[in-house]
């Protein structure tokens, strides 16, 4: 089952914060986050492997709640370069290597 991402789209002013959520109906081994800019390939942001563990870089971080089978991506003090479509990819406990991606969240950061 495809994970559900919310919101589907969000518009921010530069410097504002945003949260993107990813929810699965299956027990998860890991959650991946990718960003895709228009006309380009998706680029890896981070992997969440343990419940409650946050991993990130710069002003983008994420959390993973194993019990709720949910992950959230936090974009703090957004920059123009954050614009793009964000995808979560979930890996089930029984599906090595195989990711199921959500339908994406379109983020636009305006000056």
């Amino acid at each position: 089952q495809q994970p559900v991402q919310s919101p589907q789209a969000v518009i921010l002013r530069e410097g504002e914060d945003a949260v993107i959520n990813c929810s699965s109906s299956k027990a998860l081994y890991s959650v991946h986050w990718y960003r895709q800019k228009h006309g380009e390939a998706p680029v890896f942001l981070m992997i969440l492997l343990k419940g409650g563990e946050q991993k990130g870089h710069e002003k983008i971080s994420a959390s993973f709640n194993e019990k709720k089978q949910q992950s959230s991506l936090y974009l703090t003090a957004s920059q123009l370069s954050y614009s793009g479509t964000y995808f979560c990819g979930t890996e089930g406990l029984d599906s090595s290597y195989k990711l199921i991606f959500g339908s994406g969240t379109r983020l636009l950061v305006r000056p």
Partner: protein
Amino acid sequence: DVKVTQSSRYLVKRTGEKVFLECVQDMDHENMFWYRQDPGLGLRLIYFSYDVKMKEKGDIPEGYSVSREKKERFSLILESASTNQTSMYLCASTTGRSEQYFGPGTRLTVT
């Protein structure tokens, strides 16, 4: 610098033609994937391969087949192209259960 390349950025084929999409990675990754990307649907897994000559069906394998004769090369084959296979096709590779590296994509139009 890691690299996943795809044989064509744009391809136009006629209904009923046999279509080959090729993907090559230079990172010695054992796992390779083919996805199709359609607006509002995210990335959907067609097939993946975890070793040479090994393949597994993804979520939407109907109408497609794959070939992996060498570790670095993974081909997607549309036996008889149909208009509903018009889409963006993305190849990816990874080692173990880590981040996936994506190619630039092939936009296929079937007329």
